[in-house]
């Protein structure tokens, strides 16, 4: 999470068992509207009890309900199909596809590591003892070089195909 978060709001202690005053009921109706399921969880049971018992509480709920209905008249457009397509195009790709996409880069990296290894071998062998050692290393590496060159070609082919 990157967005800074302030200290989380603290929940009030449970008040289910306590009767609710009409004043508190009205304040909650003014804030949260007529649907008791949208009221703070800790107040719902007591509010339900008062709503059943008090005509004044029910009148306040009716007032809140009228405003809820007016607010419900606000309409907004549904997201377009084009937006959904744009989102899908930018979404994460399946792991298998990502692995295939990463393959050519891995092969290229291996080839570069191998070539740098050859350079190191060259430095180590550039001395008095050259002849047979170099021939031996070159011969041993030749098969791998062919193999890596093949992967490199494959990488280029995949790159070209993906372009």
């Amino acid at each position, binding site marked *: *999470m990157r967005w800074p978060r302030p200290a*989380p*709001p603290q929940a009030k202690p449970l008040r289910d068992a306590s009767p609710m005053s009409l004043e508190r009921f009205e304040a909650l109706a003014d*804030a949260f509207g007529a649907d008791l399921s949208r009221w703070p969880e800790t107040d719902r049971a007591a509010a339900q009890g008062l709503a059943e018992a008090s005509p004044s509480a029910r009148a306040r709920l009716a007032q809140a309900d009228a405003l809820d209905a007016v*607010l419900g*008249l*606000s309409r907004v457009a*549904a*997201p377009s199909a084009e937006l959904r397509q744009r989102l*899908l195009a930018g979404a994460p790709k399946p792991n298998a596809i990502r692995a295939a996409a990463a393959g050519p880069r891995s092969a290229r990296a291996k080839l570069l590591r191998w070539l740098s290894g050859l350079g190191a071998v060259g430095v180590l062998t550039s001395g008095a003892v050259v002849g047979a050692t170099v021939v031996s290393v070159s011969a041993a590496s030749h098969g791998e070089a062919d193999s890596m060159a093949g992967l490199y070609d494959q990488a280029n082919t995949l790159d070209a195909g993906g372009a």
Partner: protein
Amino acid sequence: MTAQGKAEHDPDEALLRRVAAGDQAAIQALIARKLPRICALAARMLGDAMEAEDVAQEAFLRVWRQAPTWRSGEAKFDTWLHRVALNLCYDRLRRRREQPAAAPPDQVDPAIGADVTIEIMQTSIRVQAALSELPARQRDAILLHHYQELSNIDAAAVLGVSVDALESLLARGRRALRARLQGLR
């Protein structure tokens, strides 16, 4: 009572893990679950459907980037997403204030649909205008709680206020709306 704004049980977390793995069904499910809500929030914040879609697209780009490194237990994904969308809307509203010569957003949204009558459209515009005239924090509280149907705890977490402060913002905002929208319906 759940932890405030935190993800003791985040209903989106499992889906988000599948999104991070590139599961196309999960990606489509997440879009279906969240996109209409985020577009609606941005449309009501900005009063402009095109800008709302731009905000939604940017918010989802951040989701795609964030999904692989999402840390569970810190915040609910839905709360985080609302905060991202809200911040993107704030940026655009700020730019409008800094560039007052820019064309105002369309007041009538042609994308709402042909089945909506002129009368419904006019009523909707009036409600939208009343919302946009509220002080910003009152407007945001009402959008998050009434329209986005966030709980009081989650809405307070998005706004970075206490639940008592949220209740006060909602009450003042609704009182102002009642006065401005008298006679409707």
